[in-house]
């Protein structure tokens, strides 16, 4: 068993970089979440209450409803790619900076202690 080492978590929480990371991440994640849930729910709502719109043929026999269902795939995968890019070019970089600074203060890994604590100490 390794010797437990304390990390000053409160200091990281108070770090202005972490605060900024936290607020930007929160806005981005929950914003995207809201967009995708609302867009998803538009499909059953449209199919139930706006059938006249969904039935309009726009591309041969292909109607608005089919195109809307296909657009769900595009929007969903679009959000996934957008988030993935944003996270690796932005969030990950800031998090790595914070980690590097604070990891210097951590001499011994506390992982084993952490793993054991869950098992009841």
């Amino acid at each position, binding site marked *: 068993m390794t010797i437990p080492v304390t990390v000053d978590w409160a200091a990281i929480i108070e770090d202005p970089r972490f605060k900024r990371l936290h607020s930007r991440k929160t806005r981005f994640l929950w914003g995207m979440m809201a967009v995708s849930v609302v867009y*998803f729910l538009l499909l059953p709502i449209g199919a139930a209450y706006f059938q006249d719109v969904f039935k309009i043929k726009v591309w041969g026999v292909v109607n608005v409803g089919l195109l809307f269902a296909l657009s769900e795939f595009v929007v*969903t995968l679009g959000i996934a790619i957008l988030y993935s890019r944003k996270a*690796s070019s932005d969030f990950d970089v800031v998090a790595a900076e914070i980690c590097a600074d604070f990891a210097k203060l951590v001499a011994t890994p506390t992982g084993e202690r952490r793993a054991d604590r869950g098992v009841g100490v």
Partner: protein
Amino acid sequence: MTSQPKKWSAAAMFAVAALATKTACAQTGGDTDYRWLTFTVFAVIIVITMVVTYLAAKRVRSASDFYTAGGGVSGFQNGWAIAGDYLSAASFLGIAGLIALYGYDGFMYSVGFLVAYITVLLLIAEPCRNIGKYTLADILAYRNDPKKTRVVGALSVIAVSTFYLTAQMVGGGVLVKTLIGINYETSVACVGVLMLSYVLFGGMVATTWVQIIKAVLLVCASLLIVALVWAPYGFSLPAFLQDIVLDPRVQSRVASLLGDPAKNMTALELGQRFLEPGLYFKAPIDQISLGLALIFGTAGLPHILMRFFTVRTALQARRSVVWAMAIIGGFYLLTLFLGFGAAHDVGPANIAAVDAGGNMAAPLLAQFIGGGANSLFGNFMLAFVSAVAFATIVAVVAGLVLASASAIAHDLYVGVVRAGKPVTSQGQVRAARIATLIVGALSIAIGIGAKGQNVAVLVGLAFAVAASANFPCVLLTLYWKRCNTGGIVAGMLVGTVAAVGLTLVSPNLTYPKAVKAAAHKVLDAETTKRSAAAEALASADPGVVAKGKKDLAALDKAVAKAKADIDKWGDATTSFMGLEEPLIQMKNPGIFSIPLGFLAVLIGSLLFRDRRAEELWNEVYVRQNTGLLVSKSTAH
């Protein structure tokens, strides 16, 4: 220790293959000429997975190897494995079938399965990787009372997995029976023993590879079929769909679904109606409720969450989800062509005749485009798709069994029963294997015991419980400072009880009174219908005579079923729950039970303050956002 499991695994697998081949060879009738082909394809796929398991068994030494493949899976591999874990037979065969039988509405169903991964990607995957170790309850136990949260977490994991597992085992048994003609009990036993040998000997390493192989096969099979179906139209979407609209079999299917309103519609309007919503879903609120359970439930499915512990970093966890979404999304796009293609080439009536739920749409389409029932390539395609469906069931079941076994061995045994008395790594692996054996044996027993039951409701229930209990608890312990043990215990209990309770009083159960009333209605109308059919048979027009014969056969079938129903239910007037009729009219509880689950976590947390949980918040929040210390905690 290592050589023994190897020998067992090899022996067990060959026994399964031998059993499957022997029982099947004993069967005759049907397309016996091509039976050897079916078995060759099945055998090849089974042998490949056996070799993988044999190699994997050597690598499973520690608990971390067994539960998470030692954290050595790459994001790309894990993406395929997630797709393999998620694309169950229900979504592969079921959705293609729904589209073939109901058109547009079937396709709408598949959208929710993809959107679900947005929740996983944005809110769940990375924090879980950073905080957890092997199981869902690890995340809950991090800053809450470990014993209490492990108990409720493990119970909920076992509940969700059991519902899902039962549906898969029963569905798998029926499917294997239909596909290769061996009896139901043997089918369930084959699925069970094969799955058990992967998990028992190869742990997460073998399970991951079986899931990857299955996902690759599934995508290849679907791509091949879609290419063959779509190519004649020059890969033009309108041209392909135009042909569906013009198809007389599709038109008559729509006419029979619509009933009276169809009488004033032209053939073209009927065909076009197949591409419009409303043939399957009748209650919008119920459908929204189902959608919510799908998009939040996926993030609470224990066998999916567990996959994020097999990669090392949050970045890899994110890559896994994006890959999984690309594969799953691409696959569901293909179902559009599989379903409509089957409706056009095989015909909805023919598909429904083999299986009322449409599950045989994709295999039958494969046989058709390969050249039909009497051609070598047609039967090869049928055998290939059947083998892929079989691999699908085995891979999904393996993931579920591993998730429940880890809840029993890691959370309940190591975390609660042996709390404070550290268990050696070898002891943990042994506990995991014993738990796997128990869960596996139980799943076979449940599968055989539930023969003939309508288990479709159980998949919905698994998602509903995952969305109403697991999801609120995991989400709030990760994102809400005040969340604590009281909230987790309350949320798990209320969410589970609400989802199960609402399902028990919903129209999903059988209500004998309604069944008998419907049966009597059929019998009352019998005389009128019989005389109408007799009139038709006497007609000079061969078309009318043919229709009369068909009507008569359908009538005989309906009458026989009605009589059987009346016999079966006898004097019973109430459902399993003692109700004469459903208390609520909704089939999907999500829209009520999800908010109730969240509310329970909120109220529970506020009622029982827990200083420790709040003190640990800083640590949880920093770690889930930065991944600080994560690489060290997974390296053993």
